[in-house]
């Protein structure tokens, strides 16, 4: 559970939980003893005690439970001679490093930093956590904000217990928001089907795509009551047909998102390789630089991963573009018209860049935080939800593609680039500075690689080997699409991604990849110049 969410709920509580728990006076003795029990009892017991704490009516209870379920409730080890259970309870504010910032759980005053040695954190585990979630959700159900209630109700599905069931039925009566009501009803139905094998409840669940509901129905199919069994079966069948379509849509989405990643990785190469004919083996490392830029940004702007990410789009472009210029000036300009040599030289560069990152930054992967607005997924329906980060990346890929298209088609640079690539001497004689164009082109390609890096930092490792994992795929995409053709790259990337995802379910990840490679090899035999070859005289020779 993320801290943000806990804090949010903490806030809600401060404002709204008073009517629920506010009727009793705070009592530190009782609190200390309750917490002590919580600390010293077994996992089995802890749940019950947590319940007691919630009911104790102490307005700090909510905070304790939050901290407890986040593993942030701790006790200062009683030093020699102190009485049993006299250890002070604290809420850990920051738990990184060897000394933790803590705050007194009872008085709430700041105790500064305390060495981990002297702290015993109160152990919590998954089942406890979900129990506490349950308890807290019930509290949330009385919040005025309908969305909060909906979220709470959703959370309740699947972990309703007898005590809660009663409370829910009461709450349902008073609930006026339709969605919340429905969800609560579902939650109850799930409980009924699971615990009581209630036939009418099955009806409520039929057609629900919620996994908990499905789970409940599944368990019902094992029951000995034939009627219930049958009802559950029918309900499941109707759900299954719905699911099929969702699955198909999902696979397509997966394919597109994988494809867009490929496109992003390859499109920079489509410029440097496709347009300039430079076999840039360091392309992967330029991607890596983009990813590391994102990391660097987030280090510079702690606590604002989102802003850092947005800023690192231009930054990543710039960094990689500059690196590209450096490469072009220092090496590639000396290798004009020797494409295979550029392959070797740039491969050398890629080795250097990797080792550079290892020695300067670290051989270890770096943490790049996913901002909230990019994590999680949007729910089309209970069964089909599109992961947000992928969605953003698809969009990003398209934006980058369109941008490049415009640059190549509409701008002076694009014109000059095409002129130079088609007939260098002629372009020169028409007063185009070929060298300048080369630099610009390579910088552009490299910069786009940087953008890819920024995007990739959101789905994969940010480490020295990042580039290597994408370089070969990138080349495949470019060659498959047809060198020197951005459209080709787009189509190739998306189709390869989709093919891969379609194959994966029955071929398995490895075989799928192999099959795709073999497919490309054979395809190149049939059409040596890719999907969209450059035709005519220009292509000859």
């Amino acid at each position, binding site marked *: 559970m993320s801290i943000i969410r806990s804090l949010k709920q903490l806030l809600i509580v401060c404002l709204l939980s008073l009517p629920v728990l506010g009727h009793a006076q705070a009592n530190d003795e009782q609190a200390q003893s309750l917490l002590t029990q919580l600390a010293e009892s077994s996992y089995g017991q802890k749940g019950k005690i947590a319940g007691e704490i919630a009911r104790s009516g102490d307005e700090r209870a909510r905070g304790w439970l939050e901290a407890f379920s986040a593993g942030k409730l701790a006790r200062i080890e009683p030093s020699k001679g102190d009485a049993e259970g006299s250890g002070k309870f604290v809420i850990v504010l920051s738990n990184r490093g060897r000394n933790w910032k803590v705050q007194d759980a009872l008085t709430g005053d700041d105790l500064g930093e305390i060495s981990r040695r002297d702290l015993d954190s109160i152990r919590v585990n998954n089942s406890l956590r979900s129990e506490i979630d349950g308890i807290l959700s019930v509290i949330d159900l009385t919040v005025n904000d309908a969305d909060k209630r909906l979220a709470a109700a959703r959370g309740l599905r699947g972990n309703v217990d007898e005590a809660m069931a009663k409370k829910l039925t009461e709450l349902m009566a008073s609930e006026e928001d339709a969605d919340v009501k429905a969800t609560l009803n579902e939650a109850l139905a799930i409980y009924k089907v699971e615990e009581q094998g209630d036939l009418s409840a099955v009806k409520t669940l039929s057609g629900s795509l919620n996994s908990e509901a499905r789970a409940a129905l599944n368990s019902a199919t094992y029951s000995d009551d034939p009627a219930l069994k049958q009802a559950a079966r029918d309900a499941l069948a109707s759900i299954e047909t719905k699911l099929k379509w969702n699955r198909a849509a999902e696979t397509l989405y997966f394919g597109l998102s994988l494809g867009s990643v490929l496109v992003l990785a390859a499109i920079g190469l489509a410029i440097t390789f496709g347009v300039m*004919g430079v*076999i840039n*083996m360091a392309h992967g490392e330029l991607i890596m630089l983009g990813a590391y830029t994102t990391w660097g940004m987030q280090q510079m702007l702690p606590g604002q991963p989102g802003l850092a990410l947005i800023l690192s789009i231009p930054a990543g472009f710039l960094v990689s573009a500059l690196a590209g210029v450096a490469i072009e000036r220092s*090496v590639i300009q*000396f*290798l004009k018209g*020797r*494409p*295979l*040599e*550029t*392959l*070797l*030289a740039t*491969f*050398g*560069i*890629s*080795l*250097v860049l*990797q*080792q*550079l990152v*290892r*020695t300067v930054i670290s051989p270890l992967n770096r943490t790049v935080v996913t901002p909230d607005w990019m994590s999680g997924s949007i729910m089309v329906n209970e069964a089909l939800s599109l992961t947000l980060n992928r969605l953003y990346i698809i969009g990003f890929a398209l934006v980058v593609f369109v941008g490049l298209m415009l640059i190549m088609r509409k701008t002076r640079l694009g014109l000059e680039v095409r002129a130079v690539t088609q007939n260098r001497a002629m372009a020169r004689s028409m007063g185009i500075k070929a060298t300048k164009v080369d630099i610009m082109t390579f910088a552009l390609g490299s910069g786009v690689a940087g953008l890819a890096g920024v995007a990739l930092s959101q789905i994969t490792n940010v480490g020295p080997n990042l580039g*290597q994992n994408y370089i*070969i795929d990138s*080349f*495949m995409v470019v*060659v498959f699409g047809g*060198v020197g053709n951005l459209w080709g790259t787009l189509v190739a990337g998306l189709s390869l991604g989709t093919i891969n995802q379609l194959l994966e379910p029955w071929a398995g990840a*490895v*075989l799928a*990849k*192999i099959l795709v*490679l*073999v497919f*490309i*090899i*054979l395809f*190149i*035999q*049939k059409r*040596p*110049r890719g999907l969209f070859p450059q035709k005519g005289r220009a292509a000859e*020779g």
Partner: protein
Amino acid sequence: MNYSQSWLTRPFTERSTQIFLGVLFLAVMVVSVLHLVMPEGSALYVSSYTVTLLGKYLCYALLAVAVDLVWGYLGILSLGHGAFFALGGYAMGMYLMRQIGDRGVYGDPTLPDFMVFLNWDSLPWYWHGFDMAWFAFIMVLLAPGLLALVFGFLAFRSRVTGVYLSIITQALTFALMLAFFRNEMGFGGNNGLTDFKDILGFDLRTDAARLGLFIATGIALAVGYVICRAIVTSKLGRVSVACRDAEARTRFLGYRVERVQLFVFVVSAMLAGVAGALYVPQVGIINPSEFSPLFSIEIVVWVALGGRATLYGAVIGAIIVNYAKTVFTGILPDAWLFALGALFVLVTVFLPKGIAGLLPGLKKKTDDESEAPTSGKEATA
């Protein structure tokens, strides 16, 4: 160059080949003698560790020669020669695995250990026959040869050349690497084949066997070099160069370019296979990482460093780079990749002809040499 001589004997009339063979022979002799005669601990003693190391270098040298044959003379930059190397290695590895017999940890007379503990109940069909040395050694040539034949036939027929060819060769070796990583393939997955016991009845762990392998590698390199030399000095060699420089022109002269390419490509692949086969027993393991595209690129760089289209350059390059690797990974590991990377860049940018380009005269001289009788006459004509 002497055009009227038989293609097989022609190489021996070349100064460069004579020098190369001489140096190689001396080197192998000296190492062997020092290893046998010199007392351990004396400055001149060559430990079996060094012998094996040198053996490994020679394998790489042969591999580099194979690459130079296609790249230097045919203009085909293969980024997949590691695949042929590895296939040869696996063929040998399978033989060595079968030689272990029931001395494996599970004592299964037929199944290699990795099959036993992954519950394979019987030997997969493609493992049969590898208990016989002759079969295995044929496969060492056949496996890479066939792959090269099929792949080359498809590629050259449809005139896939230059960059495109390089990239799909890379795809080829990459696909093979993924395939061999799969444990279902029955080649030991990531662990590959290892823990070999003996070869042709000799215990691999004895110094004698090591020396034997080292000498065998030396001979293989010599033979391979002469074969390549014979090809490139033959008319076919000149046709290859013709294909490299002006493919269309060559066609209009009536040569079937794709067949020339296919022939040379297959020969090269087989040589690579032999190199792999000799490599495996000396390093004691073969695993899919030999298929890695990076390795294949590295080979090309050895050749580039030594100098394209000279063959002996390839040998020099392979030995220098790998020696450097041995040294650097020992003394300053962190700097190693910097050194290697910088090397790639510097060579390609400032040393396009490679080291061989630095020692001129060698090749020229041989030409004038063999020309002397004829050219003299014709000059007057």
